């Protein structure tokens, strides 16, 4: 008799004799046991509704769609005031000041305080702002002096010695003090525009409509108001528009939770699923007490955003995700590194100074580019190509803050859904297809 047969012999005998032995009877009657079972089932339903089962999947879908749709409607219905009269700068990639003009008559000696709060001429004249003071003094000196206060209350002033000498002294200063136009008597390119505007013999200036201003007597960027019937009797609002065609984002995300236990609904075949006395679900795979623990996924990558319009953008990039799983109590581990290419669209629906809010949606295929398991980890894959592509989709609401003109911070709370695949490795995303993350990163404006 071979050794194996001998061993089978004594173990088989032991199993036969001791294994079938039934000793003491249970103390608890089945009626009591039934009561416990029903109570546990009720407790599991309550616990499940609060945590594992959570919000129904359809509700999560609906919420994500509603957020994106609401943002879209908001963006589409939001139009700047008087946009038909916007003198919009056309030089892509440059920060422009677009001035909205109103075709209403005004007196020559009118001061114009242009700031984001929408000062009217009368407001400016009666206020204590430097712009208003300058304007008032200019008016009393019989000079057609026009003062513009930009966002930083830096004056943009056009001054004219008298009605017959238009643009005798023109001084423009923008917020950054980078453009200064002084005195247009001869040769100066800035004042030359003003001179040209005044060539019609009118007392007032014609606006040098630089950078694409409309032909009407509306002052445009970096230009003085120009005619006798001044177009600036109504609030004049500068609208700052930024159209950075390309921006590069570098980001990583924080996961919402760090450990995931088995989910009974997603248990792969061959697993035994059971719960403890508290109703908590456990896996048993191969060995009866194994539990899968999933560390928080670590993700990072680069994204490239292309602004189709000031509101809408398309985005793609490259994202790496590292997934670590281990089995308790054996300590068997699985490490997977996925590389994904997200493709998405979004829109900005709020721009407030340096802050902006946007919503976006994406889809992403991700391929496992590195996978390692130790000897004890149950795995069905002998090579990387066996591991199927992981598909996901998500929606996010993002908030950005531009630190400088080229660098900004952003945070994107994102809801992602990882499409189930029975052939996929045992990962956190397989057990919890819906996942909330907070994506944080830097964005570099390339233009």
């Amino acid at each position: 008799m071979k050794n194996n047969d001998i061993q089978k012999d004594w173990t088989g005998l032991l199993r036969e004799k001791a294994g079938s032995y039934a000793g003491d009877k249970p103390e608890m009657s089945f009626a009591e046991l039934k009561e416990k079972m029903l109570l546990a089932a009720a407790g599991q339903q309550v616990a499940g509704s609060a945590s594992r089962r959570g919000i129904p999947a359809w509700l999560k879908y609906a919420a994500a769609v509603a957020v994106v749709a609401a943002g879209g409607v908001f963006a589409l219905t939001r139009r700047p005031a008087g946009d038909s009269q916007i003198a919009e700068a056309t030089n892509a990639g440059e920060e422009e000041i677009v001035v909205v003009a109103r075709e209403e008559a005004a007196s020559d000696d009118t001061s114009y305080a242009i700031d984001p709060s929408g000062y009217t001429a009368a407001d400016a004249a009666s206020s204590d702002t430097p712009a208003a003071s300058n304007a008032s003094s200019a008016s009393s000196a019989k000079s057609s002096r026009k003062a513009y206060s930009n966002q930083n209350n830096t004056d943009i002033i056009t001054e004219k010695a008298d009605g017959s000498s238009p643009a005798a002294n023109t001084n423009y200063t923008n917020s950054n003090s980078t453009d200064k136009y002084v005195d247009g008597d001869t040769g100066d390119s800035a004042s030359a525009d003003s001179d040209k505007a005044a060539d019609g013999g009118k007392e007032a200036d014609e606006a040098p409509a630089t950078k694409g201003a409309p032909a009407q007597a509306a002052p445009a960027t970096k230009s003085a108001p120009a005619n006798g019937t001044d177009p600036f009797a109504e609030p004049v609002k500068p609208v700052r528009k930024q159209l950075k065609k390309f921006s590069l984002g570098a980001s990583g995300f924080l996961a919402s939770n760090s450990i995931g236990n088995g989910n009974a609904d997603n248990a792969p075949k061959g697993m035994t699923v059971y719960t403890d006395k508290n109703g908590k679900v456990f896996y048993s795979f191969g060995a009866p007490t194994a539990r899968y623990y999933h560390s928080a996924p670590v993700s990072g990558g680069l994204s490239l955003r292309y602004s189709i319009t000031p509101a809408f953008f398309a985005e793609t990039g490259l994202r790496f995700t590292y997934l670590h799983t281990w089995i308790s109590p054996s300590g068997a581990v699985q490490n997977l590194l996925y590389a994904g290419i997200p493709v998405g669209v979004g829109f900005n629906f709020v721009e407030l100074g340096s802050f902006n809010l946007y919503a976006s949606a994406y889809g992403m295929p991700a391929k496992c580019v590195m996978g390692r398991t130790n000897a004890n980890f149950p795995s069905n894959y002998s090579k990387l190509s066996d591991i199927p592509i992981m598909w996901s989709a998500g929606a996010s609401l993002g908030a950005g803050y531009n630190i400088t003109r080229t660098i900004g911070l952003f945070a994107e709370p994102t809801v992602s859904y990882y499409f189930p695949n029975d052939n996929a490795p045992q990962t956190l995303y397989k057990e919890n297809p819906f996942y909330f993350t907070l994506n944080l990163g830097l964005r570099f404006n390339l233009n």
Partner: protein
Amino acid sequence: MDGIEALEKAYKDDGAYLLSVCRRYVRDLATAQDMFQDGFVSAYLNWSKFRNRGPGSLKAWLSRIMANTCLMHLRKKDPMNSADDIGTVRMSDLSDTALAEGISQVRDEDLYNMILDLPDQERVVLNMFVFEGFSHREIASALGIKESASAMRFYRAKAHLAEMIKDYEK
């Protein structure tokens, strides 16, 4: 037949057997009673996972759940991965054939009690190997020990059992 009815039938037919499965792992009768109750509750909560593959399948499924419940309890109480004291291993002079013969001579109840008298770590490995049919690799994975440690514990359980049978024969 719904879960409650099937479990009630299993309770009546196999309750004592299932309790003895629990005792093989935890020995203490009161604790085994608790494990038995918890096992039934788990079975009821996971009734949808049960696949009836003919007579005996429910009994086998329940005994597996009882074993799982006991192992979880033991792991909480006393981790199974404590170091093995190799120095205390005693060689048995009883051959496998003699052991098989000795087992056949012992009454079922006495044999069962001999298993209960084994040290916890050895008894658990013996149970998993002999009664649950796990390999040493699977036992090692479940208990968080090395495969060689599982084999060592099994060997020591066998040696202890051989000694007890030897004493029994005297």
